[in-house]
């Protein structure tokens, strides 16, 4: 938008908090907390598909939690790097590395995935939300590779 305010320090901290909250609620298996990070028409794109809108996002992540692919029983965590944020006071983009350590049955820890979150964020009603998140796979263990 031509007349949007510049991206302030508060905006950048709010976007960082949004990105951090995504990981915290996902690892906690909090499906509604996860969905609330997205705009009503929000989009998630991942290696296996695409969700459009909160209902589809809820169904997708709810299934992942139910089969323990994410959430408290998954024995994995989404560890975030520093987001690189650009934009203005109404809309911005962010790119963030994500490392996913996972504990195996014997207690050993491996890193099956390294991702980049490529985000488009919008401020609605004073709150930053994901308009679109692309989950880009950068490095993947052989069992997680699709190529």
């Amino acid at each position, binding site marked *: 938008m031509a007349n949007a305010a510049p991206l*302030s*320090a508060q905006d*950048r*901290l709010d976007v960082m908090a949004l990105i951090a909250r995504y990981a915290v609620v996902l690892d906690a298996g909090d499906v509604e907390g996860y969905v609330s990070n997205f705009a009503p028409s929000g989009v998630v794109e991942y290696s296996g598909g695409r969700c459009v809108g909160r209902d589809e996002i809820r169904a997708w992540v709810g299934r992942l939690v139910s089969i323990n692919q994410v959430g408290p029983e998954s024995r994995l965590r989404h560890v975030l*790097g*520093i*987001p*690189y*944020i650009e934009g203005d006071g109404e809309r911005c983009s962010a*790119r963030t*590395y994500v*490392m996913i350590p996972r504990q195996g049955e014997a207690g050993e820890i*491996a*890193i*099956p*995935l*390294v991702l980049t979150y490529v985000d488009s964020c919008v401020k609605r009603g004073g709150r930053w939300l994901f308009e679109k998140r692309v989950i880009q796979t*950068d*490095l*993947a*263990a*052989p069992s997680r590779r699709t*190529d």
Partner: protein
Amino acid sequence: MPDAALSAEDRLDVMGVLASYALCLDSGDVEGLLENFHADAVLDHIAGRAVGHAGIRQWAEGLMNGGRVGGTPAQLRHFVGLPYVEGDGERCTAQTYSTILTYNAEKAVTVPLVGSYHDTLTKRDGRWRIQARTIKGDLGRAGRPRE
């Protein structure tokens, strides 16, 4: 003497420089990488010293020619942690851990090196860039301290 304290805006700008460095290096974007350094910057890396944009370009292109850094599909990521930033509104230092993630011979994701960036950044014409960076190897074959 600088009369401005290091503001929240300054700290976030510095974090943006550190995030951009990793994203540009890992994506093979040499021009973007150089934007994070002043033209007279000095980079002390594990194998030597690079001076100015020409020297840093040569160093970066040398890494990229090795095939792992900046390759497509991705072969390596510099996963940058939260920086410790101190200084004032014109000059600051930052210390940041960086975990290198890449594939091993079995194509599993592994951590060959944990290093740290010891940076001096200065603000010129309203923009923070790296004035001097020392890259230290803290853990791993390339950087293990001599015993």
